[in-house]
């Protein structure tokens, strides 16, 4: 028996209205996510990488049903949730949780740590009041490596890394099947980043949950992901098992991105060849025809300028969308 994927997404498209229509003029839309397809198996981490404006955060919000999808379908453990509403949606939300980027703004400064972690339990009616949740909260705080006296203190008395641990404890309270982590370590210092990444990995091994790990930093994503998806201007250009992305990248954008990541070694860094994207970033309100990367790609041909390349399999589990490679 094979389990259905924890999350699978087919041709997901999300458009935001950028200018309201009038009697004469139709409204204008910005397509932030354009026909994105991927799946995450139970216990797996998919790293979703892209630069600002690539649509990675919108994908995360769409799968959590926090923004409406314009087209495409979302499945959670085999069940379609694209149009789910009301009580079933409420129940569903207990099974997918979000960890946010900034631990300074994502915790309410007026709530004690115990109340922050117990809140999801209260909201979903698992407990009647905070004191009933006390043991559970303590176990959770212990699991994420918070000091024993943390539960009575307020967020301001903790460092960024510890606050992020609280955010993770809160996300784990309802024992979700999926955690969407949107840049969970970008705001943290290097020496603390590693602590949080390792914690997320340990928790996954213990509880078998899946992660959609959204980030812009390839060197961090590589450590936590089983597979990595690269997004550019609203589309996925490449998905591959993590080592394939680094050993055998196919898409020119992936290659450009990899070559730009600085390596902390002066001898290597001074002599490295870098690929510089041409021209200016894509205007999403007015994307180019064909491949989204064609205006910046050194290898673009006439075909790239007319027709958008499909995601084709290059080796087992490795797909890329490029006409030339």
């Amino acid at each position: 028996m094979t389990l259905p994927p924890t999350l699978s997404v087919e041709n997901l498209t999300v458009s935001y209205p950028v200018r309201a229509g009038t009697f004469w003029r139709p409204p204008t839309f910005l397509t932030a996510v354009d026909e994105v397809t991927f799946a995450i198996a139970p216990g797996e981490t998919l790293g979703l990488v892209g630069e600002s404006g690539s649509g990675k955060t919108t994908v995360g919000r769409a799968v959590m049903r926090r923004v409406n999808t314009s087209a495409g379908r979302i499945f959670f453990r085999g069940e379609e949730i694209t149009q789910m509403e009301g009580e079933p949606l409420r129940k569903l939300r207990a099974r997918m949780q979000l960890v946010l980027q900034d631990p300074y703004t994502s915790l309410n400064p007026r709530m004690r740590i115990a109340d922050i972690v117990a809140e999801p339990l209260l909201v979903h009616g698992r407990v009647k009041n905070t004191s009933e949740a006390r043991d559970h909260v303590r176990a959770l705080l212990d699991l994420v490596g918070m000091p024993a006296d943390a539960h009575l203190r307020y967020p301001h008395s903790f460092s960024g890394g510890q606050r992020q641990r609280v955010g993770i404890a809160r996300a784990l309270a309802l024992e979700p099947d999926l955690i969407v982590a949107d840049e969970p370590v970008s705001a943290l210092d290097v020496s603390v980043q590693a602590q949080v990444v390792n914690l997320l990995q340990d928790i996954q091994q213990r509880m078998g949950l899946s992660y959609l790990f959204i980030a812009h930093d390839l060197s961090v994503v590589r450590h936590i992901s089983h597979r990595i998806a690269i997004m550019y201007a609203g589309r996925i250009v490449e998905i591959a098992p993590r080592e394939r992305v680094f050993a055998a990248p196919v898409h020119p954008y992936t290659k450009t991105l990899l070559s730009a990541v600085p390596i902390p070694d002066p001898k290597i860094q001074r002599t490295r060849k870098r690929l510089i994207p041409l021209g200016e970033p894509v205007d999403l309100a007015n994307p180019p025809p064909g491949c989204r990367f064609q205006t910046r790609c050194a290898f673009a041909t006439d075909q790239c300028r007319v027709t958008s390349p499909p995601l084709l399999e290059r080796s087992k589990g490795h797909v890329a969308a490029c006409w030339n490679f």
Partner: protein
Amino acid sequence: MTLTVRDLHVAFETRGGRVNALRGVNLSVAPGETLGIVGESGSGKSVTAQAIMGLIDLPGRIEAGSITWNGKSLLEGDGYGTSVWGREISMIFQDPMTSLNPLMTIGAQICEVLTQHLGMTAEQARERAVDLLAAVGISGPRRRVDQYPHEFSGGMRQRAMIAMSIACNPKVLIADEPTTALDVTVQAQILDLLAELQSGLGLAIILITHDLGTVAGLCQRVAVMYSGRIVESQSVDAIFERPQHPYTQGLLRSTPRLDEPATRLLSIEGTPPSLMQADDGCAFRKRCPIAADACKEMPPLVTEGAVQIACHFPGRPAWQARQAG
């Protein structure tokens, strides 16, 4: 033409107590040299830059120490500082969106610098502004000069900021996290630009960053800050090959690298101490695996040739060699 900082102490009086942001910083930069200042948040790297630029304002105060340019103090109230800041020593900031005035064209903002500091006429300033935009790699500078910041992409805005900072032919450029807000592909281009300007104009650059990768490519010398002090300063090759201070060693091993196998990330346990707690010992000792009784006393910054280090046990390996798996 050297900039020298000696035993600089800066403190901020806050409602919560006194924050000792800098506790004896020593550094100097020579013409044509690039000095990297690396540290985590709260280590005092930005405060150092602000102090050099005369930007420390109440509740902050320079308590002790000296900052000299060409042997003359910048801190005396005789107007020497004001004649140097913005001219011979200039600065670029992290976020180009908030450092540019959104209501003024890019050209007007550059011209303001030129007319104020160099006494140029409006026509001269405009011509020079166009040249400067071209010099920092902005295509179509004649058209761009009349555009507003919102019409520029993030990378272009940072280029405009750099154009403004080199407008008065500075000798020293202080760059405080110039690429942190930018995407990696853009970051690479901005770092290339800084390297070009450095060799072309013979600039001395102080690059302040938390990212060791950024330092590796651009800097010749690196100073590592921890908790308001410089703990180690060496040539860039030496610091990456033979880090002396346990903190530098820890920082290097916890920085994820794209060119190494994706093993479990290594971290430095614990978090930096609060700057409010006055402590006479080495600030790193609570996180340091080789701390001993001697570390309860502050190690002085000892200079040996080109190496400066503040540790009782310099060069001793603090962590086991990196293990695979």
